[in-house]
Every structure is written in structure tokens, then in C-alpha cells.
């Protein structure tokens, strides 16, 4: 498998911090994902490609108590319903999302980024993307459950 592209069927891991309340237990004790589970200061959520880390979700854990969730690359690429409108409600831009390898972290060759084309012109689109990613990951369930 080449590391210069991410195949549609690749599983992508994401670490979720319970310490920072990126997940919370509901009244039945089930862990729910916060929208912030996929947030990123630079609007490019980072993930690890399972195929390049022996499909071991613990590779992605930032700390032993963190949980790990997953999405499939094609699920991210299928998100095509985020648009930006003008004041009259006319569509100005429709965003397309992709998963690209990130070679900037040499000690983690599995690292990849979820990116938008075009770039976000404000945070509104990104906030909706976070809700969608949360929904996708929540449906797939935990690879590793977080600990309190």
C-alpha cells in the first residue's frame, strides 16, 4: 500500500480525551462523543491510518485513559452537503472533504489529515463537519472505550 494516498476503504483512528470531556457518559452509563472529539485548531482533524499501524487502535491513544473511535475514509469523502450561502440563501461554495497522508510527522507514518476544499472561510462549516464526524464515529462504536 502506497502511503501517498488514502484508499476509500481505509479505517482511520482518532484518539478521544476523556480528561478533556471529549466524551461523556449518559444516564445509562454509555459513553457519548462530544463534537470536540474531532476538533482541531487548524481545521484539519488528524487521524491515524489503521493499515499503517497494524490496525492497532492503541497506537493512536494519546494517554492510557483515552478512548479511540474510527471512521472510514469514504464516509468522510461522501460528505457533500456542506455549503456556504450568501445573505439571500444562495449557495456560494460547496465543500468537499478528503483524507490525505501527512508526512510532517516522521515518527508517525500512519498520520493523516481530514481537509476541506476550498478552505473554510469561517468556523461555521467546520462546526457542522464536527457534528457529522461525531455522528459517523458514534455509529461505528468504540475501538477502545475511554476510562474515567
Amino acid at each position, binding site marked *: 500500500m502506497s502511503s501517498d494516498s488514502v484508499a476509500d476503504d481505509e479505517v482511520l483512528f482518532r484518539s478521544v480525551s476523556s480528561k478533556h*470531556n471529549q466524551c*461523556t457518559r449518559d444516564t445509562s452509563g454509555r459513553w457519548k462523543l*462530544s*463534537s470536540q472529539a474531532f476538533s482541531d485548531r487548524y481545521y484539519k482533524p488528524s487521524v491515524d491510518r489503521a493499515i499503517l499501524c497494524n490496525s492497532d487502535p492503541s497506537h493512536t491513544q494519546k494517554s492510557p485513559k483515552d478512548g479511540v473511535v474510527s471512521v472510514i475514509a469514504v464516509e468522510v469523502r461522501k460528505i457533500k*452537503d*456542506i455549503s456556504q450561502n450568501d445573505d439571500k440563501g444562495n449557495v456560494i461554495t460547496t465543500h468537499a472533504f478528503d483524507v490525505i497522508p501527512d508526512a510532517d510527522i516522521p515518527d508517525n507514518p500512519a498520520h493523516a489529515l481530514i481537509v476541506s476544499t476550498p478552505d473554510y472561510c469561517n468556523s461555521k462549516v467546520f*462546526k*457542522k463537519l464536527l457534528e457529522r464526524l461525531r455522528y*459517523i464515529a458514534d455509529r461505528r462504536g468504540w475501538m477502545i472505550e475511554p476510562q474515567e
Partner: protein
Amino acid sequence: MSHAAYATTGYDWASPAQATHTTTRTLKAQVLNFFRKPATVAIVNEIPVYGAIQKIRQLQSWGANWDGVDAVAVNAEAIARAIALLDQMYSITTQLYIDWSAPNVTASPHGEVVLEWWNREKKLTVYVSEAQSDFVKVWGPDIDEEMEDGILSDGQTASLLIWLEA
């Protein structure tokens, strides 16, 4: 002590019409205890909104790079605004007889306080920054058809809480 703290302390007590001699004595004891520091803390801890406010205050300790990937420190003004907003939301729920549920309290990597509520398929996320509060309503995965966002105005707060509860 906040307005909500006083209100909830009163809310927890029996109404005068229901009070028996015994409960009246109990109330007197509670009033006396209220002004002694340890008891005040104990009573305040029972207030439903207090736990969430404490969690918001704890965000003050989330300095720069709290997420390990360059996050901005949580903004102090955003924390103050989030506490005021939560106090307002709690007051609205008591006035409208809406069940109060504590939000998940976290922060965005851009220094905002993030409050999240779930009710079945519905989810409400509120981002509080130093300048304004934004909301995202979610009732399904379709971004165009099942999500709505906007700037949270005073007049909208009640309607969002009613929507979440319905």
C-alpha cells in the same frame, strides 16, 4: 452567591403551606446552617447547575496547548460569559418548568467554552467566545436538512431549550 443559588435554595425547601412544626424547625436550622460556611458549601453543591458551573471554572486551568496540538488557552472572558449564560438557561428552565439537564462542558481548540446537551436524537451545542455565543442544533446526520446554526441571542435561548426538551 448567584441569583440561581438563592432561587434553588428556596426551591429545595418545603412551602410554608406544607410546613409542619417539625419542618419549620428544620427550616430554621437550615437557615442558620446556610450562613455557616461548611453548610453553605453543602447546600450550594446540591444546586443542579452548580456542577456545570464548577466544570466551566475548571477550564481556567486549560492553558495553551492543553490538547497537545497547539490549542489556544480557554479565554477568561468566555468562561465568565458561559457561566452567566448557564445561569440564565437554568433560570429559564425553572420558569418554563423544563427539566434541567447538565451539559457536557469542554472547550474548543480556539479558546471557546463548549456546552453540549443531548435528548434522544437531538443535540444542542453552544460555543461561547469572548464576543458572542453560537449554537448548532442537530437532529440527524444530514447537514443541510438536519442541522441548523446561528448566533445565540437572548430571545433565542428559551426557544432552543424548548426545542431540546420537546
